């Protein structure tokens, strides 16, 4: 593998081919366990690395078109376990579901995107968020916007089935 191929492999995350092996038993009394289960099983547009730095996840890349417009390119080929493709429409669905609730995030309303924010699908893998004012914390807030499968939204949602609401349960 030449250097260019190796760099591409590292960036694309395709450099390791061995299959998962082994089982571990875990005891985690943390009051945030509900969130950790979500983070282990769901991707957001961004995640955090081992040092806590925000990194692209379901989002392959982003750019600020201007100080109020964030353009996001969704990763190609990502799928949910039932085979459904994760596309720009999946991101839009998550944005719309989150917008149904006044205070969806347990840590508080400061994770909310401004309720005047618009999300527009501009291509199969491209989404634009248009903010009414510059939002320098937008990427961090996207860590709290979980990209779920269609079946999730239709069958249980974040507390929808149990509580009839998603307030405080994202």
């Amino acid at each position: 593998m030449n250097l260019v191929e190796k760099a591409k492999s590292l960036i694309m995350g395709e450099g390791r081919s061995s299959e998962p092996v082994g089982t571990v038993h875990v005891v985690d009394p943390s009051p945030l366990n509900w969130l950790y289960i979500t983070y282990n099983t769901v991707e957001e547009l961004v995640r955090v690395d081992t040092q806590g730095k925000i990194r692209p996840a379901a989002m392959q890349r982003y750019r600020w078109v201007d100080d109020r417009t964030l353009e996001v390119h969704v990763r190609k080929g990502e799928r949910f376990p039932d085979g459904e493709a994760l596309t720009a429409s999946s991101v839009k669905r998550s944005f719309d579901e989150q917008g149904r609730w006044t205070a969806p995030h347990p840590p508080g309303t400061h994770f909310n995107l401004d309720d005047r924010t618009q999300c527009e699908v501009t291509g199969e893998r491209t989404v634009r968020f248009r903010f009414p004012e510059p939002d320098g914390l937008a990427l961090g807030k996207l860590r709290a916007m979980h990209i779920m499968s269609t079946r999730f939204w239709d069958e249980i949602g974040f507390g929808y089935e149990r509580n009839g609401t998603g307030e405080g349960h994202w």
Partner: protein
Amino acid sequence: MIDAPGPWGSGPFTLVEGYSSLENEVAMIEDRPLAGVWLDTNQPRTDRLVLEANTDHWNKERGPRLERVVFRNNVAHDKALELVCTTEGEIDIVTEVDPSDAERVKSSEHAQLHAVDAMRIVTGVINRFTDDVPLRDANARRALNLAVDRDRLVREGFAGYAHALSGLTPHYAGGFSGAEPYPHDPEEARRLMSEAGWPEGRALRLAATSDVEPVANMLAEDYRNALGIEVELTIIPDEELLVAQHTLVEKVMELPFDVLVHAWIDLNSDAPPAFIHGAYFAADGPFRAGPPLDDFEELMGSFATEIDAERQGEIAAQIDQFVYDEALSVFLVAPQALYAINRHVNFVGHAATFELAETEVNEEHWSRRNGQ
């Protein structure tokens, strides 16, 4: 929160059995503009929760490297710690290990200790609402900081598994001001507090939640010795925690403390003011214990609207410097997150989450020897 297993997400693992959920109730800070947080009332979990590897996950460099993760939620923490230290095949990973158990893990036959520089802090919330003591005076707040022996706190309170804080940002996170922690200077602390006019005979009301009781005990000792004033220490009973949280967040009732020892976290390390400094001092901050501060609001406004990451980091450092200069909190420590890990597990810890995509087991691990 996810209430049931299913093919819901595209992450490294799929939830195939059980759930770990959340019940909470809202605490309002302001209605216009709306600001509020949710307070935990219960965390219902199934006795067993199972994650299986999503072998189609795009990021194969990261993982998942484990085939299966079983959360044994019906095993008590103490029991789990015993099992990971003394057996193989029962428990492989125990989180939230208390520093007082660190040596026991390190000297055990089957476990190793894993310490992570985490996005966690313990601070003293200073009540700037009070009228009868001079805590609106920065010099009085500096006195509260100069009275603290942080080295002893790290050494004796956390068995060395913590870092002294200068402001609210740990030195390994983005937006760190670069300031040195306040020195332990009892004489200067006593002088400043005397000049600020602490009322004769008025005890300092120190409060803490039970999880940080040992820290509160050491702080009380420092204040008695350095400031020469009595300290009334109140440990909030767990059954009264929810009421106390409402009081702090909603700010309708008078706050019954001068200093509250308080633990908090961040969910990333890029921009601590968004989740930490803002929570303690912003007008819409749940833990704000004093009138809003115009200079702080202005800095936070610039920070929140800055889309250039480098510039935003610079403003974050200015914010951390501001809270240090004004001594807005009693800056204590950033505790490490401690894990007890089976010796055949190559655990990869995270500063701001508990995720297992990168963690793997070697060929000697019980599950591979047994073909699981």
